[in-house]
């Protein structure tokens, strides 16, 4: 190896060293331990008992697993695209140099910092079939009142809307940061060429914000597949289990039903699913992500 190349090697790993130490100390053991646990039966009270792949076999035949997995996928693919599109548009709007825009930006961030308890109470009131705001509003257009959180078919979409609403400010900030990286020159050149605002958005903003979009896409999918809190404050998994998600099923098995081994097997199947999705996104990103604005 050339001296220069070796130097690059060492430099790279030196910068990675702190993170490697942390990962080795705090992550590697729990991750491998959780895999071992998935091969056992463990009540937490008595020591684990090795049973090989039995948990995975049972998981394969478990209707609740498929049901909660479906609900989780529904939640993820319902909320992530909506969130990305809306928060990008919001960020573009909030990027204008208008007086008082700081106040606007701060207001859009308020739901992010408000507690889920408060958000759930307000939205449950909005969704209330008798006197909620939403049905009152729809009445104007002649739409009959719906039971948003009480009707199994409507419950998950309602939770998705609330969840997207609460998270808008968060992704807005990320996109705002990304927009700062796009040089004004591009927009000026486009204006001179007579490009419309929409064309500027389509051919300048979208490609040049793609590194941020990539980040938001991957991290949103990873976290949505593991969603827990929002659902449980709004519907507690109901009505009739129509909003039960995988992580809660995992949690119940591990910490309520004395089946930590089974819970770990659920975790590893979920991991596999998320990992494959991430790999697909990562490799397809070469096509649409442009670095170096």
């Amino acid at each position: 190896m050339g001296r220069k190349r070796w130097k690059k090697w060492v430099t790279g790993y030196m910068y990675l060293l702190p993170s490697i130490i942390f990962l080795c100390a705090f992550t590697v053991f729990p991750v491998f331990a959780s895999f071992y646990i998935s091969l056992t039966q463990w009540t937490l009270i008595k020591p684990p008992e090795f049973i090989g792949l039995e948990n995975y076999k049972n998981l394969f035949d478990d209707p609740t697993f498929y049901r909660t997995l479906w609900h989780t996928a529904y939640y993820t693919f319902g909320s992530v695209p909506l969130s990305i599109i809306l928060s990008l548009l919001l960020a573009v709007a909030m990027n204008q140099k208008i007086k008082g825009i700081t106040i606007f930006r701060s207001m859009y961030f308020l739901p992010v910092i408000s507690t889920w308890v408060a958000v759930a109470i307000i939205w449950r009131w909005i969704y209330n079939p008798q006197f909620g705001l939403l049905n009152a509003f729809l009445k104007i257009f002649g739409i009959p009142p719906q039971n948003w959180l009480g009707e199994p078919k409507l419950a998950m979409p309602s939770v998705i809307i609330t969840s997207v609403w609460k998270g808008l400010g968060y992704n807005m900030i990320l996109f705002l940061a990304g927009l700062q990286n796009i040089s004004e020159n591009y927009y000026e050149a486009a204006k001179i060429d007579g490009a419309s605002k929409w064309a500027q958005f389509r051919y300048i903003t979208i490609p040049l914000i793609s590194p941020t979009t990539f980040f938001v896409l991957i991290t949103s999918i990873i976290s949505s597949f593991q969603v827990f809190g929002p659902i449980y404050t709004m519907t507690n998994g109901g009505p009739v289990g129509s909003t039960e998600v995988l992580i809660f099923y995992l949690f119940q098995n591990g910490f309520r039903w004395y089946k930590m081994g089974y819970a770990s097997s659920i975790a590893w199947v979920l991991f596999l699913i998320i990992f494959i999705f991430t790999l697909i996104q990562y490799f397809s990103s070469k096509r649409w992500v442009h670095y170096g604005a």
Partner: protein
Amino acid sequence: MKRVFSGVLLVLFIMVSIGSIGYGAEKITLKFFHYLRAQEQQVMISALESFMKKYPNIEIKYEFVPESDYITKILTLLAAGEAPDVIGLKDLMIPDFALQGVLTDLDPIFKAKKGSINPMQWISPMRKHLTYRGKIYTVPEQFSPQVLYGNKKLFKDTGIEPTPQIFENLTWEGLIPLGQKLTRDTNGDGKIDVFAFGGVGGRYDDRSAIIWNYGGQLMDPNFTRWTLDTPQVAKAYQVLLDMIHKYHIIPTPEESAGVDLFSIEKMALVYSNRYNGPYYATFSWANERMFIAKAPKGPVNDRNRTSCRVMGIVSTTKHPEEAWKLICYLTNEEGFQLQAKSGRTLPWRADQVNKKFLEPWMLPFENADVYLNAISRWHGGVLPPNSDVCRKLTIDAWDAMVLKKIGVKEGLKKLNDDLNKAIKGW
């Protein structure tokens, strides 16, 4: 130099000796683990502190965890070998912990007549209730059978005077015509704003009273088999469902979603117990207009339900004697007095279940006779193993029936099968 050095050593040695004498015998540390709300913690902490004054060689390291995360944490501690010595527990958890060896059998302690607690002093239903598969693993800490809490104004507004006579022989089905008078649309917008009744939950023990009152049983006497798929249980369920769907005296889940209708004076009666007493006392209208009354009964009997909180010794403890001292203190001695002042429990010792003992505890809207009646109607509860799975199954089944996704007979048959599958092997 040598002299100074040995002089210092001597002084140090004397200091250490005096220090350890000052501690008396070894100081023992007990870990106490419980799930108390913020308001309850203060009372408990003062009880713990006066315990430590009484027993200076015992140090209590206490930890309180929010109720919703209690079991998660205790299982984590057990898995890591960091178990506490004394734990507070909901009675429903007794089977899970007893069958897995977490709790110490207390019978040897009772036999040896150590400490101040004697189960023979308890009312016999409590003895029966806490004897699980022949052994007693816990002692009571809080106890409050069901009564009705009501709103005088909502009665008087419909011309009914809420006298005790109304509730004296009130049956579940008798609640229906009463409820129909109390349920109304107060502002003429076509929607009902005031409901008659609420507070009957979907969990198996929430449902137990009405099932017994119609002659049904939830489980066999040893709690090894569920018996919900009988016509009696179906009738009990149907009566409640009719109250929601047919007569609409109980609000549907959407109508009561996220709001405590009783607190905002939109519900005339609620099926509840003294555990919620301090909460009800915070209502602005409580002192003027709240009252309590006897819970309804059924055609077969008037058996009542309760859930209670208990305390036990964890089997891995190294100090069972001290742990027992703590439990006696907190649930039976000075600690109990402090707890009783907080107003959430009723007594369970036969010598305390009487008007003379109870009367001084009563808040303005409470009534000792009603509580005594509630206690006398309680004959013990239902304690299945794998309690959280059972809880979820019974709640889901009830929700499905309320949403009319499944009929009562079919639903109960399926529920019973699922429940029996859940407790198989325990």
